[in-house]
């Protein structure tokens, strides 16, 4: 049998996917054990027990200064910023993207502006955002919005504009107005694409969130990582990074499920 024809079963696929993750963990454990054998107070590759001990304090003991459970306060603050920003991105992409996609005149007028904003590296704007909005929450949310929204808007506008002309003509021969065309033809077909775009944007969104938190914040997952870096606290940084990855994966899976449930028609063609 040719190699290209060997397809793992569903269970076999899961098993194969777990193997590399397992291998990385095992390599880490050996490396950590080796370093600790040479130097019992090594901080660079902490053992799992050291990580658990360090995280225990952040998970269940209240911070004496603020009275908060630090890990959960960080998580909540970061998710709040991310959720708010992605919400704004979604709404603006739907509104602007749909208008740009449906109306050629709007595309001619605003397309250039959106493209221009999209090519500016968002991190380069961070100083401006801090100057304009201060060091509070607004600047952090604004950074994510500026980083993600133009991409979503362009993606959505292009997708809507690329809908077959036949569909638009057909809808008009059935009596649809511009508004009805946008509402009943363009919007429903844009939604699965919007979710796909949002899934792709999760990575950049986390990057902007952590950048903003690292530079000016007093709570948040990114803030904590950059804070404890000063003490070489790898026993906190590694669990935090793992937690951020887990959150990102959960969001991605949730969005994928939402798309499959709510827009079954969009996934049938690919089956």
């Amino acid at each position, binding site marked *: 049998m040719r190699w290209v024809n060997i397809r793992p079963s569903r269970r076999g696929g899961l098993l194969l996917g777990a193997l590399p993750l397992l291998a990385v963990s095992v390599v880490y454990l050996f490396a950590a054990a080796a370093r600790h054998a040479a130097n019992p107070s090594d901080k660079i590759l902490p053992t799992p027990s050291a990580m658990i001990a360090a995280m225990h304090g952040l998970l269940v003991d209240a911070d004496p200064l603020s009275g908060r459970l630090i890990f959960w306060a960080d998580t909540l603050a970061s998710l709040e910023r991310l959720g708010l920003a992605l919400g704004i991105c979604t709404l603006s992409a739907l509104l602007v993207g749909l208008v740009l996609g449906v109306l050629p005149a709007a595309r001619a007028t605003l397309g250039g502006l959106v493209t221009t904003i999209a090519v500016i590296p968002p991190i380069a704007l961070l100083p401006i955002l801090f100057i304009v909005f201060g060091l509070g929450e607004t600047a952090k949310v604004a950074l994510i919005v500026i980083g993600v929204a133009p991409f979503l808007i362009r993606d959505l506008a292009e997708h809507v504009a690329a809908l077959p002309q036949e569909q638009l003509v057909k809808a008009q021969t059935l*009596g649809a107005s511009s508004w009805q065309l946008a509402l*009943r033809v363009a919007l*429903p077909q844009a939604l699965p694409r919007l979710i796909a775009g949002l899934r792709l944007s999760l990575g950049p969104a986390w990057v902007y969130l952590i950048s903003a938190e690292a530079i000016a914040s007093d709570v948040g997952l990114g803030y904590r990582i950059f804070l404890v870096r000063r003490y070489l606290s790898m026993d906190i940084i590694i669990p935090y990074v793992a937690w951020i990855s887990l959150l990102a994966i959960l969001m991605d899976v949730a969005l994928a499920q939402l798309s499959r449930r709510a*827009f079954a028609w969009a996934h049938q063609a690919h089956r």
Partner: protein
Amino acid sequence: MSHLLAFDNVWLEYGEKIVLEHVSLTIAERSFVSIVGPSGAGKSSFLRLALGQEAPTRGRILLDGEVLTPECSPDRGVVFQRYSVFPHLTALRNVMFGRECTGARFTARLFGAARRAAAEEAEAMLVEVGLGDALHVYPAQLSGGMQQRLAIAQALMARPRILLLDEPFGALDPGIRQDMHRLILGLWREHALTVLMVTHDITEAFGLGTRVLAFDKRRIDPHAPHRFGATAVYDLPLSRKTPLNQPDPKQEVLRLTESVITNTEGSL
């Protein structure tokens, strides 16, 4: 029979390129006009003009004696070769779409009794085109022939006066195509439609039509081929066929093909 659609010395140009020239013809009500011709002879452009998707560069198009506004409207329905159904709606919702647009200007959705009435009407239409078993199925799950049935049902729900077909059966298997011919002839008679059909299939053109228009260029300048447009070079009324009493379409197709093709093939 009265003239429903009239082309009065219509020209269609894209900048330097002349696509159609000197198109002057009238389309009688309840006729079935087949449009044939080589690729690039402006068949589809002619259909787009009738649809209102494009405006003529020169000349006038009259619908019922009134100048046609160059915009699509519900009195002219259309079925394309592909992509003319909405992938995100079930068959039933696809057919209800027209009713929902005209019935609710703002939401484009019907509720209560109006919705039930539209659904019943749509269901009857789907049964008529042979999709009675596929009411709640998305287009992606339908075969090519069934998608075209759906597109036809969807177009007929708006009760168009003219039905424009742009190679509607071009992508279908020969067997399925025959079923579709029977279907479209039946619908044409029952709904008293005027049909304009662009096709590449000469047999189909003569088998279905009451009149065949052949588009081609009358003159060709070898140094500037784009400077002469196409026009209806042959206009053949098929008088043996009347729109009202029609024998079995399959037999008709075979009989007409044999007799008419042999007479006209050379000149086409």
